């Protein structure tokens, strides 16, 4: 089934305490190349059926009204997962083959 990915990040001006803790811990494990870490969230919304414009619009609305809080977070990405499109096509072909 197709999935829509929604990525949410803390706003740049909001201190991200989790990211700060991670960037502090990285050098202790020898990862010294990174001067900053910000931790966000990724949501995967599974869709029954095709991802129409209407479905995508619903995902965008959900992203801004519920999945993120505009006071502290930005929705940085809403997209349909590409590999799922292939999976769906393959599943569809298999189903068609079974029927034939």
């Amino acid at each position, binding site marked *: 089934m197709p999935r829509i990915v929604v990525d949410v990040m*803390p706003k740049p*001006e*909001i*201190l991200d*305490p*989790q990211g700060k*803790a991670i960037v502090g811990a990285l050098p202790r494990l020898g990862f010294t190349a990174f001067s900053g870490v910000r931790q966000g969230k990724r949501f995967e919304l599974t869709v029954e059926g095709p991802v129409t414009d209407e479905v995508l619009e619903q995902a965008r609305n959900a992203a801004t009204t*519920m*999945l993120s*809080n505009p*006071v*502290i977070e930005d929705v940085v990405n809403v997209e349909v997962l590409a590999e799922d499109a292939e999976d769906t096509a393959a599943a569809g072909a298999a189903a068609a083959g079974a029927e034939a």
Partner: protein
Amino acid sequence: MSETPLIADLGTKEEAPLSGARIGVVTFPGTLDDRDAARAVRLAGGTPVALWHADETLGDVDAVVLPGGFSYGDYLRAGAIARFAPLMSKIVDAAKSDAKLPVLGICNGFQILTESHLLPGSMVKNDHLKFICRDQVLRVENAETAWTNQFEAGQEITVVLKNQDGQYVADEKTLDELEGEGRVAFRYVGWNPNGSRRGIAGITNAAGNVVGLMPHPEHAVEPGFAPLDGDTGAYSTDGLGFFTSVLNQLVGGAK
């Protein structure tokens, strides 16, 4: 809902004159402090009314407390899912109506109020990333709200602070507006325990009927089970003032 009484049977007590005032206490899945909030209402002289988040109607209540806890396990964001509970939309409407239903959000309840946009700003994790539990001194900055009118402006009170996502944040414009309009209700005294902007512990809406704060007044209402006052070493029952304030407002009492 279950039939378990919200508070213990304290034996025969004289009926308090304000017991006609009905203060709703909302329970969400994951709420922890509903019983303490109900007990605080009773000790202040009011009648606590148990409300369930899935209720479709608010019923006959004169004010509402959104107590602390971890509604929905703080999943997504603290208070983010509770905000969409059926009862919350009724509470939001009633708080914004001409009747100006008094609403107090404590800790997770404060987070629910910001997620509901009844109060501006939001809470993020404490800047030191640790859960914190301590006795906390607050300064009452606004003693004119439905929930603070029994305090004096500038009064210092001691209540309990216990939370993980307690860092109050808002953009500079919002913070300036809050300060300019006297809507900072409480500020941390002595130490900023979570990195909150401008030491803000609690705020009010413009009308003064909706107040939210991170610390827990309902845990500072009776001797023996309350924080100790830093100066005198005596038990602090300062939290009672929140509940006597709303009862005072409901009966139209003077400040």
